[in-house]
C-alpha cells in the first residue's frame, strides 16, 4: 500500500481557509476604498475620489505628519540603542547578568500593551506635574522604548550569524578597533540594522494603545485619527487612509523580506 506519508485529512483545506481569512477582510477594505459610491457595501465603479478627499483633509494630513515625525525619532533612537546593546551581548564574552539584560531588553514584549500604556501615562503625568514640561517628546520617548526589542531582534540575529574571522583579520593587519568597527563590522551588520530599523518604524507607525493613553492634546497620530473616525461612523475616506497605511507597512515588510533573503546568502 502506498500512501502519502505527510498528508492529513482536511489539513490543506484548513490552511487555505486560514490564508483566505487573513487576507479577505483587508482585500475588501482595499477594494471599497476605490469605490465611487459612498456605500461600503455596493460596488458601483472605480474611483480615486476618496483618496483625493483624504489627502485634502487637514486632520489626516496633520496626523500623518505627527506619525512620521514620531516614527522617525523612535526608529533612530531605538535602532542606535539596539545596535549598541546587540554588540554588547554578542561581541563580548558571556557575563554575569546577561540573562537579566536580555530580560530587560525584551520586557516591553512580555507585558500586555495596555499595562505599559497606563504605566507610562502615570510616569509622564508625574513628570509633567513636577517639571511643567509638555510636548510631543513624551510620545517620542515612549515609542522609542517599545521599539527597542523589535530593532534588537534582527540585529542580534545577524551578529550571531557573523563569524569573527574578518574582524580578527583586520585587527591582525593593525587596524585600530574603531577602524575595524566602521570598515568591517558595521558594513557586514548593515542588513541587520536595516531590518531592525524597518521593524521599529512599522511598529511605531502602527501603535494605538500606548499612543492613545500617552498623547497630549493635538498629538493625534494616523491610527488614533482612524480610531476616532471609525467611532464617529464608517466613511469610505477611512478606507482610503487605511489602505495607504497598509500599503506603507506592506511595502516596508516586503523590502525587509528581500533584505533578509540577501542576508541569508
Amino acid at each position, binding site marked *: 500500500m502506498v*500512501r502519502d*506519508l*505527510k498528508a*492529513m*485529512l482536511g*489539513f*490543506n483545506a*484548513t*490552511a487555505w*481557509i*486560514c*490564508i483566505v*481569512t*487573513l487576507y*479577505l*477582510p*483587508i482585500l*475588501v*477594505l482595499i477594494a471599497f476604498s476605490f469605490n465611487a459610491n459612498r456605500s*461600503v*457595501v455596493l460596488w458601483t465603479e472605480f474611483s480615486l475620489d476618496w483618496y483625493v478627499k483624504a489627502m485634502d483633509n487637514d486632520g489626516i494630513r496633520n496626523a500623518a505628519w505627527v506619525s512620521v515625525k514620531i516614527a522617525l525619532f523612535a526608529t533612530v*533612537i531605538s535602532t*542606535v*540603542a*539596539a545596535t549598541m*546593546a546587540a554588540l*554588547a551581548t554578542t561581541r563580548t564574552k558571556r557575563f554575569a547578568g546577561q540573562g537579566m*539584560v536580555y530580560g530587560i531588553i525584551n*520586557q516591553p514584549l*512580555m*507585558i*500586555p500593551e*495596555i*499595562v505599559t500604556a*497606563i*504605566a*507610562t501615562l*502615570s*510616569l509622564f503625568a508625574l513628570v509633567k506635574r513636577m517639571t511643567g514640561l509638555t510636548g510631543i517628546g513624551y510620545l517620542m*520617548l*515612549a515609542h522609542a*522604548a517599545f521599539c*527597542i526589542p523589535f530593532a534588537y531582534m534582527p540585529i542580534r540575529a545577524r551578529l550571531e550569524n557573523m563569524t569573527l574571522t574578518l574582524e580578527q583579520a583586520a585587527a591582525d593587519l593593525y587596524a585600530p578597533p574603531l577602524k575595524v568597527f566602521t570598515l568591517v563590522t558595521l558594513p557586514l551588520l548593515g542588513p541587520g540594522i536595516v531590518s531592525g530599523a524597518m521593524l521599529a518604524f*512599522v511598529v511605531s507607525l*502602527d501603535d*494605538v*494603545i500606548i499612543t492613545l*493613553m500617552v498623547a497630549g492634546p493635538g498629538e493625534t497620530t494616523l*491610527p488614533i485619527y482612524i*480610531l476616532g473616525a*471609525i467611532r464617529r461612523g*464608517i466613511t469610505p475616506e477611512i478606507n482610503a487612509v*487605511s489602505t495607504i*497605511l*497598509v500599503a506603507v*507597512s*506592506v511595502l516596508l*515588510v516586503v523590502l525587509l*523580506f528581500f533584505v533578509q*533573503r540577501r542576508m541569508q546568502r
Partner: protein
Amino acid sequence: MSEREDTSTLAAAVDHNRRTERLTRTWLLAPALVIILAISILPLGITVLYSFLTPGTYGGVTWEFSTDSYVQFLFQRDIFDDTLVFNSAYLSIFLRSIGLALGATIGALILGFPTAYFIATKPREQRNIWLFLITLPFWTNLLIRTYAMLLIIRDEGIINIVLMKVGIIGSPLSILYTDTAVFIGLIYSFLPFMVLPIYASLEKLDFSLVEAGYDLYASRLKVLFHVIVPLAKPGIVAGCILVFIPGLGAYITPELLGGGKKLMIGNMIAMQFGASRNWPFGSAAALILMALVVVVLLVNALATGREARSNG
C-alpha cells in the same frame, strides 16, 4: 627581561583588556537599558504605588494610602453603613476576558496547527513564501485589520450579503457587537502567533518517525496524536501562550467589534484612566492582569522545567 616579569606584564595586559571590555560593554548597553528602565520598568513601580493611593477628584491620585482599589475589585462599599457587599461586575469582566482569550487560543490552535503542518510539509524552497504570507498581515496595523473585519461581519457586510444571496439565511446574522464578534476578531488578530512557533517545531520533525508509525499499522489519527502532536508540543505551548497573553489584554478588538459594550480587561483599565478617572483602581486592575500573565508564564516555565528533568 626575566621570564617572571614577562608573565606578570602579560597578566596585567590581560587584566587591562578585561577591564576595557567590561567598560565598553557597559557603555554599549547603557542607552537601551536606561531607556527601557526609565520608560518601561520604572513606570511599573509607579503603577504599584498608585494602586495603593486614593483617587484624585479630577483624575490622577492624592497621596493617601489606601487598599480600596483592591477591595473595589470584588466588593462594593455601601454608602450608608459602610459595609462591604460582594460585587461581581469587575470579576465577571476578568472572567469573560479569560474565557474569550482561552476560546480564541483554542480556535487559533484548531486553525493554526493544520496551517503550520501544511507549510512544514511543503518543499523547502516554498516554505519561506508561505511563512511570509502568514506574517504579512501581522505587520499591517492591528487597528486597520480589526476595522476590516468589522466591515466583513457587520449586518450589511460581505458575509451576510453572500449568505443571503445564496439563500442560506433569510435575514442577516447579527454578529457585530457580540462576544462572537470579539472571539472572531481575537483569532483573526493573533493567528500568526500560533502558526509560527508550531511551524518552527514541525519543521524539525523527522518524518521517518511518521513512517514507522504507519509501518506499525497506526491510523492517520493515531500517528497525528501519538507521534506528530507530542513532538510539536513545545511549539504548540509557545503558540498558545503567544495568543492567550495578548488576547487577555486586548483593547482594540473588544472596542471595535464588541461595540464598547462587551468589555474586556484592557478596555476596563483604559476606562479607569479616561472617563472614570479612577487611576488607583485602573492601576490595581492592570496589576491583577499582570499577575495573571505572570502565573501563565510561571506555570509554563515549571512545566517545561519538569519535562526537561524527566527527559534528561
